């Protein structure tokens, strides 16, 4: 399975890094998570902000689609969300930007350890997978609503 170009570039970058630099890069991505939050006045086609039972804090997914049906995401995370998940929100907003629904749904989850490194993927950090699922779900629900008119 090939990954979308932007995501593939991030994977290639992260896979080539030694552990220490990979951690630094993840922290840099986590630092940028705030930049992925919705901005004042922005209008979205679909918004889903909630706290699920298995998550430490709230996760908001905001979807905007362009005229070609390409998806653009923003993500808002509660203050208790772990650093790794913050990093992943930045990575996903960038790496999945501009995909159409079918491309988005086809993105497999197996890239997560390639970016994060097996060392850091632990049971209690599985929210990194949860984010992708939430983004796919948001896009699918939006599409269904569109179809219903």
């Amino acid at each position, binding site marked *: 399975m090939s990954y979308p170009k932007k995501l593939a570039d991030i994977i290639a970058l992260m896979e080539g890094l030694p552990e220490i630099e990979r951690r630094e890069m993840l922290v840099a991505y986590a*630092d940028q998570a705030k930049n992925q939050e919705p901005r004042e006045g922005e209008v979205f086609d679909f918004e889903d902000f909630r706290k699920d*039972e298995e998550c430490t804090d709230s996760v908001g997914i905001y979807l905007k689609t362009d005229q070609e049906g390409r998806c653009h995401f923003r993500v808002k995370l509660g203050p208790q969300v*772990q650093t790794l998940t913050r990093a992943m929100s930045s990575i996903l907003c960038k790496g999945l930007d501009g995909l159409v629904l079918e491309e988005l749904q086809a993105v497999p989850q197996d890239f997560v350890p390639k970016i994060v490194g097996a060392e850091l993927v632990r*049971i*209690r950090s599985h929210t990194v997978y949860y984010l992708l699922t939430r983004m796919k779900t948001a896009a699918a629900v939006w599409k269904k609503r569109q179809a219903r008119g």
Partner: protein
Amino acid sequence: MIPDSNYVHPEVVVSTEWVASHVNDPSIRIIESNEDILLYDTGHVPGAVHIDWRRDLQDQLVRDYIQPTDFASLCSRYGITPETTCVFYGDKSNWWSCYALWVFRLFGHTNVKIMNGGRDLWIAEARPLTREVIKFSPSNYPVPAKRLDKEVRAFFEDALKQSQQHLPLVDVRSPGEFSGEVTHMPDYPQEGVLRGGHIPGAHGVPWKRAVNEDGTFKSAAELRAIYQEELVLKPSDDVIAYCRIGERSSHTWFVLTYLLGFDNVRNYDGSWTEWGNRVGAPIERA
């Protein structure tokens, strides 16, 4: 917040202010240990080193702790000697720092302290954080003669015996986990437990009852009211604490051992992820 001087061992709890005034003290090593594995990298108390509970303290193959040689290497890497005072702090109201401290005790390192309130209080007080990682000159920590598994650690058989003999077991998980209503703690993923409930005869006292809103430990009087009056435990009792994987129960182990001065408290680190999966293990549901 100044720690309560009425604790039985008040010297093991230090304030954020005390830590701030000791960041350059060569006889002190400040150690951060968190659940969020990248949190230290985002900024930490100046001079603090990082101990990752899973990578540094646990065997990477068998579910067990590192061996004495590994512990000596870990300490040597951070310039720690047996005389070094290790001050632990971290996220989650100090769960993992208490866990790390407990592992240090497993190897006989008794010169340990906890920073009251942990990382969150340090940040709430607007104290400085840094991303600078200081390289300490390696020390030559002697390899401990053995791991003190019998003294501060309990195994399945110990917990079973404790239950059968109606001796004190303290289940520090959330009420829902204790009752068997859920098999994971609130806000966390399932960690692979097949059965819910608690060890027969265990007292359900969530770890959180021992802390204030800001993560600091409750006063000695408040703690006595919970453990000695409500549960009617005595400092001379042989007590076993457990949770899911041993981190929250490390917190309670610390409270009972150091703040209330109980002589024989053991942490059952196998906890519910062992008991709830064990074929034939007796379970009680409330």
